[in-house]
């Protein structure tokens, strides 16, 4: 008789601060046996509990191949993230999941992959990138376009360099015009324009685009010109969620319960949804 809302107790292994208001946290199950048994697919999310504050939804941004811990990344905005900001190694938080659907890594096999992230959208993409790099042979060329307002807002910057060293992987970092600093070496410009300028070889390509709605809106035509059509463009919805198991009605958007049938959708599915997110 399982209580589906009961989280498992997790121990905080490491806390890393990326920007003025973004941190990533590594946690592992207190019960080693559960850690060993735990598995998920990249793209899924979990509900993270700060006892006394509440629960929040974050994507599991570590690769599913890493068995000793899971990682999530958050921005300090609300009540739970305020408390999460103060969390430290050795503290105890709660986790339940994995929930939601995942990236169709199998369907993407053999395809070229284009990962496009804006602002704090890198974590949901990072897990897919690491998974693809760990099974490098199965995938074609990988292009990563990651942009933010200023260099200080970029997340996982150390890993961006590491990814560039893999073969047939091209990493393009960019900052919004006016946000660049003297020592900025990457591109300057909005992501859609940078992507267009990068003239990524088209054909047999799947794209993962996550970021503010306005960025997605202007990136789609560029992808279209590259021949990547709506059914091959994936994104992750950033809805407000509470139960994560399709009961509480919070994430309901049009005919879909984002927590159970999302958060990963193709643009084709997304276009069918009413603009209710």
């Amino acid at each position, binding site marked *: *008789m*399982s*209580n*589906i*809302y*009961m*989280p498992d*107790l997790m121990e905080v292994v490491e806390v890393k601060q990326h920007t003025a208001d973004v941190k990533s946290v590594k946690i592992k199950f207190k019960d080693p046996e559960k850690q060993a048994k735990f598995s998920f697919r990249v793209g899924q999310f979990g509900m993270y*509990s700060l*006892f*006394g*504050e*509440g*629960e929040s939804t974050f994507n599991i941004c570590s690769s599913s191949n890493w068995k000793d811990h899971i990682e999530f990344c958050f921005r300090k*905005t*609300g*009540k739970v*993230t305020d408390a999460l900001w103060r969390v430290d190694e*050795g*503290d*105890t938080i*709660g986790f339940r999941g994995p929930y939601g659907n995942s990236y169709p890594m199998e369907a993407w096999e053999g395809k070229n992959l284009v990962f496009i992230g804006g602002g704090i959208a890198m974590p949901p993409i990072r897990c897919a990138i690491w998974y693809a790099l760990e099974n490098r042979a199965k995938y074609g060329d990988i292009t990563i376009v990651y942009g933010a307002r200023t260099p200080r807002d970029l997340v996982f910057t150390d890993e961006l360099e590491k990814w560039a060293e893999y073969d047939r992987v091209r990493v393009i970092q960019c900052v919004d015009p006016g946000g660049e600093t003297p020592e900025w070496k990457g591109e300057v410009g909005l992501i859609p324009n940078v992507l267009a300028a990068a003239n990524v070889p088209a054909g047999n390509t799947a794209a993962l685009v996550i970021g503010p709605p306005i960025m997605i809106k202007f990136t789609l035509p560029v992808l279209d010109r590259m021949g990547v059509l709506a059914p091959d463009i994936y994104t992750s919805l950033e809805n*407000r969620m*509470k*139960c994560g*198991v*399709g*009961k*509480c*009605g*919070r994430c*309901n*958007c*049009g*005919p879909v*319960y984002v927590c*159970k049938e999302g958060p990963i959708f193709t643009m084709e599915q997304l276009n069918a949804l*009413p603009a*209710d*997110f």
Partner: protein
Amino acid sequence: MSETITQQALRALVDEWIGAGTKVAGPSYVKKDLCQYVPLTSSAELLLEGFIHPRNSVKDFFFPRHEKIYEYTLKGHEVELADMTPASTPQVIVAARPCDTAAVAILDAVFNWGEKDEFYTQRREAATIVALACVTHDSHCFCTSVGIGPDAEKGADVMLLPLDGGFEVRCLTEKGKTLFAGRTQPSDKTAVIPEGPKVKVSPEQVRAALEDYDNPLWKTATLRCLSCGACSFTCPTCHCFDIVDEGNAHGGCRAKNWDSCQLCMFTKHASGHNPRNVQGQRQRQRTQHKFRIYPDKFGEVLCTGCGNCARNCPVSLGILGTLVELCAEMPKTVGESK
């Protein structure tokens, strides 16, 4: 041929259940002209006629407005969790209206798809529902318009139909049979239930009308709505809930509380962005969820036409008025005409 029971015998049976420790609930006058489904301490409190529909619904006994899901204790850097085993003491809901019992059956789908919500299912299995057919209705009732009726048996274990002073007893499920075993007298008369309210809309018509998501009607039809939660909380089928932590620095509990899509905070993000910032959008969401999303996903209309939303609405809006306006614009091609 039919089985009947007199009112006194039924009341005696109810007292027996109470004596045996089962939790018995039913409609009762809590206060001058305030009839509600409440737990009963004696059958004298039980109302068997002279009321149309209690102000609340039976969902209170399956999906309570506040329920602890687990308790936590904070000790330094450690936390201890204590699971809350859901209440599964046997309970009997007596004289529930058919529109309430049907609702409970409808909710089974959402509480059991994917992960099973034990809190709901445990109570559901431990409960027996004795429905009481309706002999009257008021201007808010529209059960007939959503496929339910004054004597609909959906979700009921036993159906009581008023029959000259007593009731005809139709046991529909095993649970119903065991409950009334040996307590009914055979009779050759069968109860005749008067006609329910006139059909005002049809779910198919509404489903078609809801296809146009950006219908301008949503800007004007529900202008008078005051965005409170009275309709959702007294509706037998509304099941949205919030999860909050409550306690002090030493420990506390995580609880499930009723929530309503009509309250403005329901979809407000921490960043301040709120996809449903205007009241018309929230009303659209409620109607869409009941007449389009739930039917598409679970094949059941998430509304039993009990009229509680209009009765409890401070401005008597409810959902019927909106449905009628939606269908008024529809061409008559779909479903039988109004």
